[in-house]
């Protein structure tokens, strides 16, 4: 069977690509589009390192067939910053040293953005359960949770004072 012709939107840009049925969204993001910020830690949806937004909803790119992306809007870690201006979550991860090796960081940033887009004022418990699908083996999560809570506070402040 011929490859599928997929027309989709990735990081606000229209994208066309060819893929086999068995290729995942993660495969084409990394191998066809060169967007290697989404990482493959397990291939089974258990680590969250490949977290992306699909129409604003948080999903693991390894659990989405590439062909399913047709007609949807995909946002990857490469689409979180505005040009070279970091998103407040990214900035806070840096300021709070919320990463050590950094392999899980793209997934956490995308997941945290999905949370704060829905809930600008989450509790620590809400942050912890929302991020439970993102594994980090370096930090013990402490600085990550703090960074998300602080970024949320700063974003609320920003929203009030514009």
């Amino acid at each position, binding site marked *: 069977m011929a490859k599928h012709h997929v027309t989709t939107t990735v990081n606000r840009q229209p994208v066309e690509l060819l893929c086999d*049925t068995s290729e995942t969204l993660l495969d084409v993001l990394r191998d066809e589009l060169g967007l290697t910020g989404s990482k493959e830690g397990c291939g089974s949806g258990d680590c969250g390192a490949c977290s992306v937004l699909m129409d604003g909803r*948080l999903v693991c790119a390894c*659990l989405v067939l590439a062909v399913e992306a047709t007609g949807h809007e995909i946002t990857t870690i490469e689409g979180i910053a505005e040009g070279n201006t970091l998103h407040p979550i990214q900035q806070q991860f840096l300021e709070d040293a919320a990463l050590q090796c950094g392999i899980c960081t793209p997934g956490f940033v995308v997941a945290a953005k999905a949370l704060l887009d829905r809930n600008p004022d989450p509790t620590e418990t809400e942050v912890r359960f929302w991020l439970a699908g993102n594994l980090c083996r370096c930090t013990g999560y402490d600085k990550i949770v703090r960074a998300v809570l602080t970024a949320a506070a700063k974003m609320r402040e920003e929203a009030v004072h514009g």
Partner: protein
Amino acid sequence: MNAVEYAKPQSIDDAIRALNNAPAGARVLAGGTDLLVQLRAGHVRPPVIVDLKGIAELRRIEVTATGFRIGAAVAGAELGEHAQFAAEWPGVTEAFHLIGSTQIQGRATMGGNLCNASPAADSVPALIAAGARCVIVGASGTREVAVEEVVSGPGKTTLAKGEFISEFLIARRQAHSGDAYLRFIPRTEMDIAVASAGVCLTLDDKGLCTAARVSLGAVAPTALLVADCAKALIGTSLDDAALAKLAAAASAACAPINDKRGTIEFRTKVAGVLARRAATIAAQRARGN
């Protein structure tokens, strides 16, 4: 190496046709959170994957005077955001919400959770306790069956070739009724249930239990609907003695296995504990409405 075909029908009829015309081994794709893992591990290589998410009826949640119709391909996150359903069926909502991470919730579906036919599927005991039914469509027509009749064993369903579930039917909440679902996992998230219990019960004006359904997960080849558990509750005020009897009946109904996730002894005991705790929560909810 034959390529895997992909079809995304836009109607139930088209989907039936696609599945009917497919060679053996065709797979239905809803949320994909089980299928893609199996594909990647090389456990399955279906000739065709039929994606049901293009079918509008399978993606909607409808509320009528008598009940909820939940499309089989509605994602967990979507159902969780349905305030009315969550208010009337908190146990089912929680159970569905317990399936995997936030990321999994963005994809996993009720139809998929049921048809994957894992004995440990979280939404299934809650649906059984709630008395949910599902609509099965196929070339030979449409039929409606109770959820507990769908799964016949680990990885096996009673669906005929080409059949799939289009929607789930759940009644409106009755007065003085409540449901709850609890599972045990070693961590707080990201685990498969080691044992689980769903309870739905109804009280009369005096607080006596008039109806109850208790279902257990991960303690037998399929989720169980345990009549003895219901008997232990019906006619009681859900006092400690009744709850102890419930726990004993639940443990007695277990026929679990030893595996990497838990032992027979552990599952048997904990199923009783969970049934008792879930019944307590369901009773509180029933008293509150």
